[in-house]
């Protein structure tokens, strides 16, 4: 009696997917176009076998490309843990240690030629791993735990696993944070979720957003709106900041149609809309420039050019070096850019197929009627994520656009700009409940007799200034 799922659970033609190769070693977004391929080792594999498969499916590399793993393989990662669990009793009794290990490069008797020969004869990756273990003179002396580690290392090299993941704000934020943190202003997933909570984003919200983190925030908000309400992404200067990351989200056309872009100046002129609505809505009509009007040719001369060709790992790196900079506007609608972004890691071969199923364009200019509504009713939430900018003046401009009692959340990678902003808000008496918070997130390894926090952790995910806009009676 289950109602149809609101979340698509299987990959479909033209959708955006996240591939997790070898347990997080490599993470990359792909568009499931007919020609799309992923390069694993020296092999280029078509992504067609992913079509119709449930998100969460595991694939291995067979002689003819990607093959879904059998159910038993699918839980191999957990077997690994469970084996550890089985060894739980042994954990205390473990007598083996590394006293007899000598690093003299003679432990492995299988040569690389032998392995190549096995491959030519069509041996599976798992068979090669077994052979490596059988030919290792030290394997038997290792502890159970280091045997597991050895096996895993060899498995990653000779029998890589590809996990099909569904892009969602969680997985998109985690992926960017892990691979390209500078592009999203070092916003960790817990900071992003706090922003959404603190700004009270939900169905029918009218969210005002300043997104200079590539579209991560706008995409996450659109996901929470679920095709209701509106998100208005505002920008300083004359051209909108790039919100390309929203293409990683599988936003439906309904959801995409809720995303608008408007220059800050136009929004600020709304404050007096109540007094002279007719005049202003007229001027809005001619002032608002459709972001789409940016001609494709302009990209050729744009300083952001390296991004166009970002298809390989090396080039993708250049994206991280180049922070999102609104002074260097990137037309958000260009196909090449889009392609460069979706293949942010190393998607090859899907070039030229990028025109394939295409979502409706996000980021239209809002209609004069919509602007008028916002002017009269105010936005119900404000999120600012401008990690390279001074925020005090931006917030001073934006806060009056919020409806009374509406909450706001300002993200920053530095503490000082938020402290300054908070101080001036306290003085202006425009907001109450002001608080600067910094989330701290620690992951744990949970295994029998071996539970402890991860040895490596991320120590910083950003600062948030939150508060509530209040009604200040006219003097």
């Amino acid at each position, binding site marked *: 009696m289950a109602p149809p799922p609101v979340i698509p*659970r299987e990959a479909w033609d033209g959708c955006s997917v996240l591939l997790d190769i070898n347990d997080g070693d490599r993470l990359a977004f792909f568009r499931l176009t007919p020609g799309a391929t992923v390069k694993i080792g020296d092999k280029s594999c078509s992504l067609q076998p992913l079509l119709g498969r449930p998100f969460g499916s595991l694939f291995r590399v067979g002689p003819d490309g990607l093959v879904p793993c059998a159910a038993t393989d699918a839980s191999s990662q957990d077997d690994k843990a469970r084996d550890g669990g089985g060894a739980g009793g042994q954990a205390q009794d473990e007598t083996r240690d590394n006293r007899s290990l000598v690093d003299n490069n003679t432990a492995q008797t299988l040569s690389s030629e032998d392995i190549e020969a096995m491959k030519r004869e069509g041996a599976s990756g798992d068979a090669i791993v077994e052979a490596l273990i059988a030919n290792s003179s030290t394997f038997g002396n290792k502890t159970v735990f280091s045997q597991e580690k050895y096996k895993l290392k060899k498995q990653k090299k000779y029998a890589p696993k590809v996990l099909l993941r569904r892009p969602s704000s969680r997985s998109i934020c985690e992926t960017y944070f892990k691979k390209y943190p500078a592009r999203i202003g070092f916003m960790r997933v817990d900071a992003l979720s706090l922003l959404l909570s603190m700004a009270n984003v939900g169905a029918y919200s009218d969210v005002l957003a300043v997104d200079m983190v590539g579209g991560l925030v706008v995409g996450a908000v659109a996901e929470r709106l679920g095709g209701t309400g509106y998100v208005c992404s505002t920008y300083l200067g004359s051209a909108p900041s790039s919100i390309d990351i929203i293409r990683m989200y599988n936003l439906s056309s309904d959801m995409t149609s809720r995303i608008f872009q408007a220059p800050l100046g136009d929004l600020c002129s709304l404050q007096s809309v109540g007094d002279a609505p007719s005049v202003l809505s007229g001027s809005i009509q001619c002032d608002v420039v459709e972001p789409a009007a940016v001609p494709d040719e302009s990209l050729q001369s744009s300083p952001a050019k390296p991004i166009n060709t970002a298809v390989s790992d090396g080039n993708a790196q250049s994206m991280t070096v180049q922070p999102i900079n609104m002074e260097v506007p990137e037309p958000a609608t260009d196909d090449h850019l889009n392609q460069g972004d979706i293949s942010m890691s190393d998607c090859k071969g899907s070039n030229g197929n990028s025109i394939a199923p295409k979502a409706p364009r996000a980021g239209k200019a809002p209609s004069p009627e919509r602007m008028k509504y916002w002017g*009269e009713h105010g936005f119900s939430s404000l999120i600012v994520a401008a990690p390279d900018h001074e925020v005090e003046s931006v917030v001073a401009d934006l806060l009056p656009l919020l409806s009374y009692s509406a909450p706001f959340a300002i993200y920053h990678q530095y503490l000082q700009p938020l402290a300054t902003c908070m*101080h001036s808000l306290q003085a202006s008496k425009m907001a109450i409940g002001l608080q600067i918070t910094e989330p701290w997130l620690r992951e744990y390894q949970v295994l029998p007799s071996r539970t402890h926090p991860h040895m490596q952790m991320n120590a910083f995910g950003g600062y948030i200034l939150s508060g509530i806009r209040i009604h200040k009676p006219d003097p």
Partner: protein
Amino acid sequence: MMVPLDPCNKPTSQRRITEGDTVVVYERHDSMRAVTVSAAGVLQNRFGVFRHADWLGRHFGSKVFSSGGVGGKGGRKAGGGFVHLLAPTPELWTLVLSHRTQILYIADISLVVAYLELVPGCVVLESGTGSGSLTTSLARAVAPHGRVYTFDFHDQRADSAREDFEKNGLSSLITVAVRDIQGQGFPDEYSGAADAVFLDLPQPWLAIPSAGTMLRQDGVLCSFSPCIEQVQRACETMRSCFTDIRTFEILLRTYEVHEGALKSATVNEASSEGCSLPGKKRKIRSAGEALDSTQTSSVIARPCSTARGHTGYLTFARKSVHGSQTGAAEVCPTS
């Protein structure tokens, strides 16, 4: 209306406080309470006596003054006290609700909602309901067409929670039922229908197999436990039909902001050296001192010295997809 169910009933600048509205009375950031507005109502607190009648017709977010001084505040002039009247949100609700149990706070709540990948329209199961802090945020995340089915084995608590949800206009989003999820599991009717399941139970491992049956493929389970021993056992149970099992701890550090100037180190040196300095040097120093006292002070921040040190561990897991073919039979044991 805490969570709008259609575009007409969302709080905007046009909305005024009317009879029957729930407002959050904000005294200070650490002192708030929820009040249902009624024309004859009176609120009395340390800032004075407030007549609800004075609030009617005002904007949400308004500052309102007390109608008369109140005992204890001797010198305070009558009508000097004030509070702000805020529109309720799930975040504010968490700060004002009556604690019938331990509750989840914003850091855990926001991570749960994000990691459960909740979006409008989702179906989510929760046990136990407790004081309804998380439940309210779950409802916002799945509104307007999704559902939260929440279960508590405690009759009275379930009733109180139901009343709260009713009062906050969440009844069409949240169904509260009395049920011992550890003993009985979730009701069969939600089998394979849940996008997410949240457990806050003393023995979560007892409910995990049932949670697995309820979840759609690739759906996410979260178990919240204050103790690591609970986490340990829960994770062992999860391994049979979940993957991607990850345990987190999330805490918030808050900062206080002050305006001020730090004393100059060179000035200190001058004063310690006392008057033994030659006149000329002293003059320079005092000029420097004068400059220091007139220098524009700056805004400085530091972490607050008290903080919550632990709430609980959040363990997330994804229901395994056993699929060479889609819609494969469930392989999760349900004993």
